[in-house]
C-alpha cells in the first residue's frame, strides 16, 4: 500500500526547496451507496477514489491546485500549478501556514472498525428495512422516494512545510428516505434521516418511521389566518435555522462585515435560554477530527453563553488578524478545495423540558415539523422567513394539520424570543453536524390566508 503521508511530505519538501510554504493533503476514500424502491434495489454504487491537493503560500499569496492523478509527473505539475497561481493572488501578511502543535491521541470514536467488514448484503437489507418501516407506519404512506443508505470510509493525510504531518481515519454511515403520504385529495412528503460514525448506531426503524409519521400527520393540512404568535420548532427545523446562524458566527463573517452580529461581541444578543457551542472534539461527533483542515488541533468553544455573544470560530488566517489562536475550525471536505472556516459539531445547549412539555405549555400556536426555504434565512442581513408545515396547537394539544403557511421573524428577534429549549437534543447531518432540541419561540409572523 502506498504511503500517502510520505507522498504528502515529499510534495511539501520539494515545494519548500523552492522557497515557498506548502501544504499537501491526500484523501483516500471508499464509498458505498444503496438505493431501494418498492423492495427492490434500484441503485448500487461502490467505489474508491483518491486525490492530492496542494496549497502554496509565497509572500502571503496563496495558490491551490488538485488532481486525481497521483503519477509522479502529475504530482509535480500540481504543486507547480499552485505555485504559479500564487503569483496572481494578492499579498496578505496574515496568510501563513500554522506551526505544528501536539495532537492529542485521545480516541474521538470516529472510526468504526466494523464498517469496512459489513457485507453489501447487510447494507441492502438495512435499506429495505428503512423503506419497510416507513410504509408500515400507516397505510396512508403510499410510497417512498430515494430510500438511500450511504457510507464513506476515509483516510486523511496532511503535511506542511513547517513540519506538521498527521493522519486519521474516519467512517460515516447515513440513511435518508422521503415518505409520501396520500389520502383523498391530499398528498404530502416528509424526510427521515440519520447519520453516525458507527454503522450499528443507525436505526432503520426510527429513520423510516420518522418519514412516515411526518408525512401522514400533515395530510389534509390547511393554512391558518395570518397572525403573530408562538411557534414550536421540531429539532430538525431548529437545526436547519442554526446551520444558517452558524455562518454568522465565524471570525471571517465578522471581519468582513458579512454577519448580522458584527460589533455585537460581548453583548447580549439572545434570551438567557440560548447557549451555543462548537466542539470539534465531541466523541462520536460527525464533524469530529483530531486536527482541522490545516493541521490545527480541534477544540471546544462556547460561542453564546446564556444569550451573551462570547466568541466566534477561527482558522489560522482569521486568528492572526485578530491576534488570537485558531479554534481549529478550518473545514475541508475533500482534497478538491482550500480549507474554509466553518462550524464543526455545532449545537444549542439543551434545556430541561421534554418535547411534550414544550407543546403542552402553548395556548395557541404552530408546531413546525418541516420547513422549506432557500436563502430565506440570511446570516448577513438577519432576515428569517420560510415556508412551513406542521400541527396547530390549542390549549397545549396538537389539534389539526397546517400546510402552506410561512413563518417569519428576524434572526436577532428569534434569538431574543426563544423562551424555552427542550432536552431532546438531536444531531442532524445538515451542513456539517448541527445539533438542536425542540425550541419554543414567541412573536413569529405566521403568514397564511
Amino acid at each position, binding site marked *: 500500500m502506498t504511503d500517502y503521508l510520505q507522498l504528502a511530505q515529499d510534495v511539501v519538501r520539494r515545494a519548500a526547496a523552492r522557497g515557498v510554504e506548502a501544504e499537501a493533503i491526500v484523501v483516500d476514500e471508499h464509498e458505498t451507496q444503496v438505493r431501494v*424502491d418498492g423492495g427492490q*434495489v*434500484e441503485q448500487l*454504487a*461502490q*467505489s474508491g*477514489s*483518491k*486525490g492530492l491537493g496542494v496549497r502554496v503560500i509565497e509572500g502571503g499569496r*496563496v495558490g*491551490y*491546485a*488538485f*488532481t*486525481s*492523478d497521483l503519477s509522479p509527473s*502529475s504530482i509535480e505539475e*500540481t504543486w507547480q*500549478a499552485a505555485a504559479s*497561481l500564487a*503569483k*496572481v*493572488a*494578492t499579498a496578505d501578511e496574515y496568510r501563513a501556514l500554522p506551526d505544528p502543535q501536539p495532537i492529542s491521541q485521545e480516541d474521538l470514536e470516529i472510526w468504526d472498525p466494523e464498517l469496512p467488514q459489513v457485507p453489501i448484503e447487510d447494507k441492502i437489507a438495512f435499506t429495505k428495512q428503512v423503506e419497510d418501516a416507513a410504509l408500515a407506519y400507516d397505510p396512508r404512506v403510499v*410510497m417512498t*422516494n430515494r430510500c438511500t443508505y450511504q457510507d464513506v470510509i476515509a483516510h486523511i493525510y496532511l503535511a506542511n512545510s513547517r513540519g506538521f504531518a498527521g493522519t486519521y481515519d474516519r467512517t460515516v454511515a447515513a440513511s435518508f428516505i422521503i415518505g409520501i403520504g396520500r389520502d383523498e385529495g*391530499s*398528498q404530502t*412528503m416528509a424526510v427521515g434521516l440519520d447519520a453516525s460514525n458507527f454503522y450499528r448506531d443507525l436505526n432503520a426503524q426510527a429513520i423510516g418511521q420518522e418519514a412516515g409519521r411526518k408525512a401522514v400527520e400533515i395530510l389534509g393540512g390547511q393554512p391558518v389566518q*395570518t*397572525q403573530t404568535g408562538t411557534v414550536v420548532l421540531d429539532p430538525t427545523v431548529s437545526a436547519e435555522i442554526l446551520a444558517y446562524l452558524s455562518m454568522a458566527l465565524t471570525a471571517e463573517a465578522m471581519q*468582513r462585515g*458579512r454577519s*448580522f452580529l*458584527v*460589533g455585537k461581541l460581548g453583548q447580549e444578543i439572545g434570551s438567557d435560554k440560548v447557549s451555543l457551542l462548537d466542539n470539534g472534539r465531541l466523541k462520536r461527533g460527525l464533524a469530529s477530527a483530531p486536527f482541522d483542515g490545516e493541521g490545527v488541533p480541534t477544540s471546544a468553544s462556547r460561542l453564546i453563553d446564556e444569550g451573551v455573544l462570547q466568541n466566534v470560530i477561527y482558522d489560522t488566517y482569521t486568528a492572526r488578524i485578530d491576534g488570537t489562536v485558531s479554534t481549529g475550525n478550518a473545514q475541508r471536505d475533500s482534497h*478538491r478545495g*482550500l480549507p474554509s472556516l466553518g462550524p464543526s459539531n455545532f449545537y444549542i445547549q439543551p434545556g430541561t423540558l421534554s418535547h411534550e412539555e414544550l407543546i403542552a405549555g402553548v395556548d395557541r400556536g404552530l408546531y413546525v415539523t418541516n420547513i*422549506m*426555504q*432557500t*436563502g*430565506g434565512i440570511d446570516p*448577513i*442581513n*438577519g*432576515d428569517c*422567513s*420560510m*415556508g412551513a408545515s406542521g400541527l396547530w396547537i390549542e390549549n397545549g394539544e396538537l389539534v389539526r394539520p397546517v*400546510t*402552506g*403557511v*410561512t*413563518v*417569519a421573524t428576524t434572526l436577532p428577534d428569534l434569538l431574543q424570543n426563544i423562551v424555552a429549549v427542550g432536552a431532546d437534543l438531536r444531531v442532524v447531518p445538515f451542513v456539517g453536524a448541527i445539533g438542536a432540541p425542540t425550541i419554543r419561540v414567541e412573536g413569529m*409572523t405566521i*403568514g*397564511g*390566508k
Partner: protein
Amino acid sequence: MIPEDTATRVLAAALDTGGDLAEIYVEDRTSLSLRLEDSKLEHAVRGKDRGAGVRVLFGPLAAYAYTDDLSEKSLLSAAQAAAAAASGKGKNLVIDLTHQPSPLEYPVVKPFDSLTVADKAQILHRMDETARGFDAHVSQVIAGYGELRRRVWIFNSEGLYVKDDRNIVEVRAMVLAQKNGVIQRAMEGFGGQMGMELFDAHDPMNLSLRLAEAAVKMLDARPAPAGEMTVVMDSGWGGVLFHEACGHAMEADFVSKGSSAYTGMVGQRVASPFVTAIDDGTIPGRRGSLRFDDDGTPASRTVLIEEGILKEYMWDLVEARRMNRDSTGNGRRQSFRHLPMPRMTNTYIAAGPHDPEEIIRSVKKGLYVKRLGGGQADIAKGDFVFSVTEGYLIEDGKLAEPVRGATLMGNGPEVLAEIDMVGNDFALDPGMGMCGKGQSARVSVGQPTVRIPRLTIGGTDEEIAGAMGL
C-alpha cells in the same frame, strides 16, 4: 481517452453476469476558479479530475462502480464490481462500437487561455473598484470567476460511442451595503457555454454597478408584508420559479413512480392557455446545453406544456427503458462519480401576448419581484417557497418602495393554472443557474414578465397586508 478495444473488453466483462446493458462513462475535467473578497484576490484554484464509471443495468437495478485510474486493469475491476450485482448468464454479445458525431455546435471562439490568469484576476479587481466607487455605503464586494472544461466519452454495449466537450465560464458577484447597522446585499452573475467571448457580450463592470445600486437601494427597504397578494415576476431569472415548482415534477423519475403532481396528466390542461413551457438542451451558448446527455442520448428540445396542455415529461435512459419509450436526452450526472438521473437543461416559459408595462399597470396593490433568490419545492404536492432578494411594492399600477425579507409561497400546479398575464418580453437568465437534486447541474431558466393573481408572501409585517385589505 481510452482505446476502443479496451472499451469493448470492459463492456463485455460488465455483461458477464447477464446484465441487460453495460456502459462506460469517461470524464476528464479541468477547472480554474478565482475569488476576490475584501479587495484581495485570495482564492486561486486549479483542478484536474479524471475517471470513469462502469454501469450495468439488470432489470430494475443500476449497479455502478467508478475509478480514477483509467488503466484497462482498473476498468475491468470496476466492470466486475458492477457486474457482481447482476445474477444471470453471460450473453457473449458482439459489441461493435460506432462513433456517432453530433450535429450540434457550441463553439469556443476565444479559448479559456486566450486571457491569462492575471487578466482574469484583473477583471475581478476592477469589479471590486467599480462597486466600491458607486456609493460610500458599499461595504464589501465578493467577486468570482470560474471556468470548467468537461470532456466526456460514453460507450455502451449497444454499440454507442459518443463524445461531448462542455466548456463553461461564469462570473459572479455579491455586493454588500451597510448603513446605520443595517446590512443588505445583492448577488448575481452571468456565464455560458463558450470561451472568453463571454466578455464581448457582458461587461462585468455593469454587473458590479447594478449590484451596488440594488444593495444600496435595499438599505431603505421596509419589511415585506405577510399574507396573500398579487405578484408580478420579472422576466429572465424569474423562470426559476417554473423550474422548481413545476419543472422538477415533470422529470420522469418523479412521474413514473407516481410521486409527482403531474403523473398521468399528459393531454390534460395543467396551465392557463397563455403558458407554453419548453426544455431545450440544444441552445448554443447556454450552460444547460449538451451535445449528448450523460447517457449518450442526443440532446433535444422538448415541449412540456403547449398553450396550457401537458405534452411531455423529461426522460433519461433508465426511466425511458422502464416505460419502453425513447429518452428525451435529459439524463445528467454531476461527474463520473455519480449515476445519471432525469434533469432539466434550459427550461423556460415562452413569450405571451401582454405588454410588460401593462402588466404592472394592471395591479392596484401587489409585489413586483425583480430578483428571486433560491427556491425549493415539494414534488408530491407542488408547494414551493422562494426568497425574494429584490422586491418592490406595486401601488396603483406603479412600482413603489423596496421590501426586504419576503418569501413567496404557493403551489406550482395552482400557480400555472392561475397565471393570467404573460408578457411579450421573453428572456433567458444571464447564465449562472445551478440546480441541486442530490447532484448539482448547470441549468438555464427563462420567462417573460408574468402576473400571478394570488401568492402567499411570508414577510414579517402583518399590518401592511391588513391595510391593503388582504
